[in-house]
């Protein structure tokens, strides 16, 4: 199913269509229930609508495992193969199609039913058939279609044969082919653009694709890549590489993040740049590994013993996966601090087709503050300065040496055991991050500037909230605040709150961690409401439409 979706998305992208393709998995390890949804848009990779125009189902016995997340409307054209369970009510617009059999009879194997269905769907949308044929001949990724061209064509013919509906698809804004990538590869892209040349990781769903993308990217660049024995080691290796001056990254999901806690504290205490990407999944513990949730926020912000300041950023769409990965590397380097970039399963595994230039405008590269060659007296790794940032020699740099540790230390990095040194270490580490509170560019505000009803959301939830605001034409009534930098929280968020009478916090976690976090550092409007529920099913437009409407009406 993922293959079918990918091919269709590619075919459309080559004709200039943008779109988004989230994935859904059931419990089976392989060959079990999988589904994708796919949107086509002429301008931007918009979220798929809750109710699909067309639903293709190869196996209804597996459909129910994820039906919950898919949606089906009375007008959806359902093409299905195989038996329909007796209790199952199909819309009138449903039609059995023997993709299996057609594939068997044309290619000698039922395994090409994907290609048959691809032909059918390409025609139903409809895509330009001439362009599609040309693309199939030329595009390397579509080779599998070319090898099974008769199956594809049989699929195309089915539309006329069975009088299937043909939709109306606006012509693409321009015909330039779109780039296809998922959030996980966007993160890798952003990190590499920001000069990251070292990756250490340990496989975990749904973050493994970042590892894979980094492997592919770093090989040709002569970078350093290693699959470590566990997450503690990955994080440790990142610190080792970073100390020598290399920009280094690791990526994981909740359980791995837990294991990195102690290393995160060391990075904070000894001021070593480090970036951890956490692609969140349903928790706690193993939870639901293949589904999204926003429940690692508390740990990202407060996790770890002692006062260990760090920066936390959160991507909310695939463009920001790329941009904020660059930003995270920059912040880690500039502030000599650990940075956690939060993503989630939805973002990580959704493939978008998008204008190439959307990803082009990354932030400029920021550098570590480096000591001058002519420093007086012994080099002070942790020299005091107004901004709290000390010049950092890279391990191996000529003419410098220093010793450091996670122990409380003096300006030279030597262990100190007295209160003054301890308090100063805390002060320095906290102070240097204070300036991040002025990063207004890392807080997006949209909607009605003067409205006194505001909504705040973060991560992929924000994407849905925004789409729904426009769906419902509420952008004249409410405004939305979307912080990309969560910790330290920019002052702009407090300014947003100061002008509100009512606030709605929307988040995809059971206990309302985001609300608790906001409350812990801001003054919120007296009339603040929370809409929070467990993950495991992403927010749908319909669900949030209800929530937003009610809020806008009451607000």
């Amino acid at each position, binding site marked *: 199913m993922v293959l079918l979706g990918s091919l269709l998305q590619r075919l459309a992208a080559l004709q200039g269509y943008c779109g988004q393709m989230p994935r859904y998995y059931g419990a089976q390890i392989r060959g079990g229930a999988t589904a994708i949804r796919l949107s086509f848009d002429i301008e931007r990779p918009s979220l798929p609508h809750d109710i699909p125009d067309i639903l293709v189902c190869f196996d209804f016995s597996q459909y129910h495992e994820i039906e919950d997340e898919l949606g089906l409307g009375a007008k959806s054209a359902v093409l299905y193969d195989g038996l329909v369970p007796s209790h199952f009510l199909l819309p009138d617009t449903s039609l059995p199609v023997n993709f299996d059999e057609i594939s068997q009879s044309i290619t000698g194997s039922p395994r090409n039913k994907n290609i048959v269905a691809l032909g059918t769907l390409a025609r139903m949308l409809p895509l330009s058939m001439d362009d599609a044929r040309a693309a199939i001949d030329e595009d390397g990724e579509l080779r599998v279609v070319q090898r099974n061209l008769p199956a594809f064509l049989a699929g195309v013919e089915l539309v006329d044969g069975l009088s299937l509906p043909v939709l109306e698809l606006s012509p693409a804004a321009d015909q330039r082919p779109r780039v296809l990538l998922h959030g996980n590869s966007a993160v890798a892209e952003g990190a590499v653009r920001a000069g990251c040349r*070292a990756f*250490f990781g340990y496989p975990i769903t749904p973050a493994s694709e970042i590892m894979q993308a980094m492997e592919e990217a770093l090989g040709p660049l002569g970078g*350093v890549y*290693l699959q*470590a*024995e*566990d997450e*503690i*080691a*990955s*994080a*440790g*290796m*990142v*610190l*080792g*590489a*970073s*100390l*020598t*001056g*290399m920009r*280094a990254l690791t990526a994981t999901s909740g359980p791995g993040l837990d294991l990195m806690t*102690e*290393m995160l504290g*060391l990075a904070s205490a*000894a001021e070593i740049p480090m970036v951890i990407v956490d692609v969140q999944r349903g928790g706690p513990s193993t939870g639901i590994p293949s589904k999204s949730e926003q429940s690692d926020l508390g740990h990202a912000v407060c996790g770890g013993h002692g006062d260990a300041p760090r920066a936390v950023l959160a991507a909310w769409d695939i463009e920001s996966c790329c941009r904020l990965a660059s930003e995270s590397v920059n912040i880690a380097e500039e502030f000599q601090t650990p940075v956690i970039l939060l993503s989630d399963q939805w973002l990580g595994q959704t493939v978008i087709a998008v204008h190439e230039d959307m990803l082009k405008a990354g932030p400029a590269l920021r550098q570590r503050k480096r000591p001058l060659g002519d420093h007086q007296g012994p080099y002070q790794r942790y020299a005091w300065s107004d901004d709290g940032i000390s010049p950092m020699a890279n*391990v*191996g*740099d*000529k*003419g*410098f*040496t*220093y*010793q*450091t*540790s*996670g*122990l409380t230390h003096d300006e030279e990095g*030597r*262990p100190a055991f007295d209160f003054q040194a301890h308090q100063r270490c805390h002060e320095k580490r906290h102070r240097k991050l204070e300036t991040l509170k002025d990063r207004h560019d890392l807080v997006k505000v949209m909607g009605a500037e003067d409205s006194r009803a505001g909504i705040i959301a973060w991560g992929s939830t924000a994407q849905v909230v925004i789409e729904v605001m426009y769906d419902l034409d509420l952008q004249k009534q409410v405004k939305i605040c979307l912080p990309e930098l969560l910790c330290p929280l920019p002052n702009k968020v407090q300014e947003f709150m100061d002008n509100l009478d009512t606030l709605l916090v929307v988040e995809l976690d059971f206990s309302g961690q985001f609300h608790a976090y906001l409350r812990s550092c801001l003054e919120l409007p007296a009339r603040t409401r929370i809409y929070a529920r467990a993950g495991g099913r992403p927010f749908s437009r319909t669900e949030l439409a209800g929530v937003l409407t009610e809020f806008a009406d009451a607000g």
Partner: protein
Amino acid sequence: MQGNSKFTTDLKPVWCRGCGNFGLYAALTRNVFPSLGLEKDKIFVVSGIGCASRIPGYMDTYGLNGLHGRSLAIAQGAKLARPELTVLAVGGDGDFFSIGAGHLPHAVRRNFDITCIMVNNFVYALTKGQTSPTTPSAPPGDSTFLPSRSYPPVNPLLDMLSYSVSTEASFIAQSLSTDIPHLSRILTEAIAHPGFSLVGVLSPCVTFNPPHLFASIKDNASYLVEGEPVKLPETTGRNSWLHDPGDMAHAMALARIPITEMPFLGVLYRGAGPQ
């Protein structure tokens, strides 16, 4: 002792008087680094947490006294990123064999050019005397050594040599912190070895070890000399052989003889660097 070498800092070590760590410190800063002609800004010493792990603070090189058990992870990251560095991972028996035991076999199999110095004082010293995986267990009631703190009792001790022999570290040696010339030779060779090298340094803890432990280690020690017959304990009932550090099977046989019975000092195994 410090201040005599360009590789020392002016920080006074916090170790107890007579601690074996002074021997390692002297060997590295006065003999090993100078004799290898190393530049101090091309050395990176990463340690864990423990008495032995304090050492980077006293050496005027790049140094990190990191987390308990994790020196190898940090060392490998640094070595990969900057291969021209001489990277040392130093720590205690607790560091490498207890909390960090999962990292060692992986460092071994990767065979990066890192020298791992395991200061074996048979005890958790910094935390004041708990049993470590190398602590010889004492029969109940025998107060000369630490009781094996466990119900039911845990007996066999982990032998780092057989552990690393089994995973075929490419250089395996053992020395004694009180024999500074020998220790210096071994460490010099270990650092010069192009792959992963593991050096066990038997090192008295004058505070938490019973004094008889190191007396008996010195008494029983068998120095390995290439090409000469190996001195074996009588109990083995095996014939001796000529020591050949290129022979893994022999290294394994040596490693299976408990340290408490006969500690072998010298190069147990010398294999190839990474291909």
